[in-house]
């Protein structure tokens, strides 16, 4: 143990005696670890922001997605509404949704955003509220009123922060009156829940020339009944379509599972790419270590003459290599941490510093030192002391 402490001290000395070279040697590991930490942080950050949005929907949400194109008979909102009323003990509310990309125009300002056409029940189902003005009323849907609710990002971007209520805007060329502003949900970021416009579903159908409503969101009273409700919804839709591929019934839990497996694969792939730079860094270390062994041939000879065994020399060089890479790893982790912080602060992307990954990265950097230091160290330990002492 004492020997390790001494070899460690010796390693620090020889690293400090050639600072520039030690730094250049470390650079490969620094960049590699930096990349791993930043990439993993980004991947985990974006996963978390999507996951959070999904989780905000709650476990009480079931979605129906009509995928069939050629069926002669489609389920209507009225039928589902009726079905929901029959199962009022389970189903709290049901809201149809029609969504599309649209261009908003106010004065000379334009803004591209997501349009959602729905009914008054959407407020209950998706837990969406207004911070000022009013939500869509049943009368708006029945009489196809061209009224719109906008998110806070749109207020900021299209109206330059002015109160938009009562203002006329053009959606894909048609004039709408803004009647409400939605509550802020995602820090008023672009392409978030705060960047959308909500209109009555009947108006949206005309605007998008879609006679068929393909999406329905259902809020159930008890999250534990999710499976049972999905089952009888499936049975109900089967009776209409006679084809299980024509529609999909799913809840957020299933969506989260799919998302997690996708992002996990993605994270591993990105980390794998970053790991290539670690291997390159490792080869750099092997190269420098070999040079160092040659340069220090005489030192090795001296050590052997005064009683160092092969093992002592081997351990000394292995520790030197892993001190270099371990230190590089720490620097890389710090740089990764700073990068993540800066990106989050400047709102470039949501990134999370992951402590397990930092520990893993540090372990990997130590392992690189040992693996790539092994060959040069064993070469050093095998030197013949007589020839090593004669080396100039």
């Amino acid at each position, binding site marked *: 143990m*004492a*020997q390790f402490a*001494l070899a460690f001290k*010796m390693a620090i*000395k*020889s690293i400090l*005696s050639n600072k520039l070279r030690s730094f250049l040697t470390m650079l490969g590991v620094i960049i590699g670890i930096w990349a791993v930490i930043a990439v993993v942080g980004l991947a985990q950050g974006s996963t978390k922001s999507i996951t959070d949005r999904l989780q905000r929907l709650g476990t009480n949400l079931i979605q129906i997605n009509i995928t069939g194109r050629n069926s002669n008979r489609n389920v209507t909102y009225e039928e589902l509404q009726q079905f929901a009323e029959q199962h009022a003990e389970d189903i709290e509310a049901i809201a149809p949704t029609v969504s599309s990309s649209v261009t908003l125009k106010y004065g000379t300002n334009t803004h591209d955003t997501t349009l959602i056409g729905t009914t008054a029940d959407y407020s209950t189902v998706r837990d969406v509220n207004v911070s000022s003005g009013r939500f869509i009323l049943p009368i708006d849907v029945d009489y196809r009123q061209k009224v719109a609710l906008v998110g806070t990002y749109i207020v900021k971007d299209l109206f330059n922060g002015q109160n938009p209520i009562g203002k006329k805007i053009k959606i894909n060329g048609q004039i709408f009156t803004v009647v409400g502003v939605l509550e802020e949900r995602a820090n008023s970021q672009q392409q978030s829940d705060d960047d959308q416009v909500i209109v009555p579903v009947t108006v949206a159908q005309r605007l998008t020339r879609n006679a068929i409503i393909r999406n329905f969101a259902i809020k159930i009273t008890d999250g534990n009944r999710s499976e049972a409700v999905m089952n009888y919804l499936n049975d109900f839709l089967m009776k209409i379509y006679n084809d299980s591929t024509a529609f999909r019934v799913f809840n957020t839990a299933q969506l989260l599972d799919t998302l997690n497996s996708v992002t996990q694969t993605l994270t591993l792939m990105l980390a794998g790419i970053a790991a290539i730079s670690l291997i390159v860094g490792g080869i750099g270390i092997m190269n420098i270590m070999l040079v160092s062994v040659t340069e220090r041939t*005489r*030192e090795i*000879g*001296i*050590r*052997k*003459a*005064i*009683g*160092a*065994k*092969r*093992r*002592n020399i081997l351990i000394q060089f292995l520790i030197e290599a892993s001190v270099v890479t371990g230190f590089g790893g720490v620097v890389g982790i710090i740089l990764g941490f700073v990068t993540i912080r800066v990106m989050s602060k400047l709102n470039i992307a949501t990134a999370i510093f992951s402590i397990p990954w930092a520990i893993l990265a540090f372990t990997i950097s130590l392992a690189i030192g040992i693996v790539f230091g092994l060959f040069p160290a064993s070469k050093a330990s095998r030197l013949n*002391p*007589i020839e090593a*002492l004669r080396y100039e």
Partner: protein
Amino acid sequence: MIELYDIYKIYKMGENEVYALNGVNLKINPHEFVAIVGPSGSGKSTLMNIIGCLDTPTSGTYILDGHEVSRLNDNQLAEIRNSKIGFVFQNFNLIPQLTALENVELPLIYKGVPASVRHKLAKEALARVGLEHHRMHHRPRELSGGQQQKVAIARALVTSPPIILADEPTGNLDSKSGAEIMQIFKDLHTQGNTIVLITHDNNIAMQAKRIVRIQDGQIIENKEVS
């Protein structure tokens, strides 16, 4: 005590066999001060490597301190060098990154001596060779040649080995420092250390108590100095 019986060291140079040592018999008793003298190429370096356990003979028997060491493996030889031999080289061979004190401690580190004992022994050894106390924490390049050689002698002494093996110890020094170093060896001899000095310089050799002359791998003269 060093006992060499019928030592041969043969190098193969392509087709030819070169006899670096050609049947050497030599006995060096404890507390002796012996100079091994010979021109370059005489085989004295090979003899020194074998006596110093850096190399093993092709044939023959080497008994050091009562143990046969001619057939030991690498690790065993390293242990012998650590505990039984103290080397002093012509070019000092100190490790440049370490301070004088750390250089002297190094053999004790490989021996596994605990830190407190190590510091004490190393300081004592430096005091014996007369290195000024304040130079202890200097690096070799901050010391003069004579001072470096003193550090090297302290390093050879620190494990209290039965034999100190000095290879041209004054070869890189001016005559004043050389005389100082030779005086240290004489003092060490008076204190009871066994010293084997390898040199090509007759004037240096004359300061030992016995001269062993070697040529073409054979001992040609072995005489006491009056």
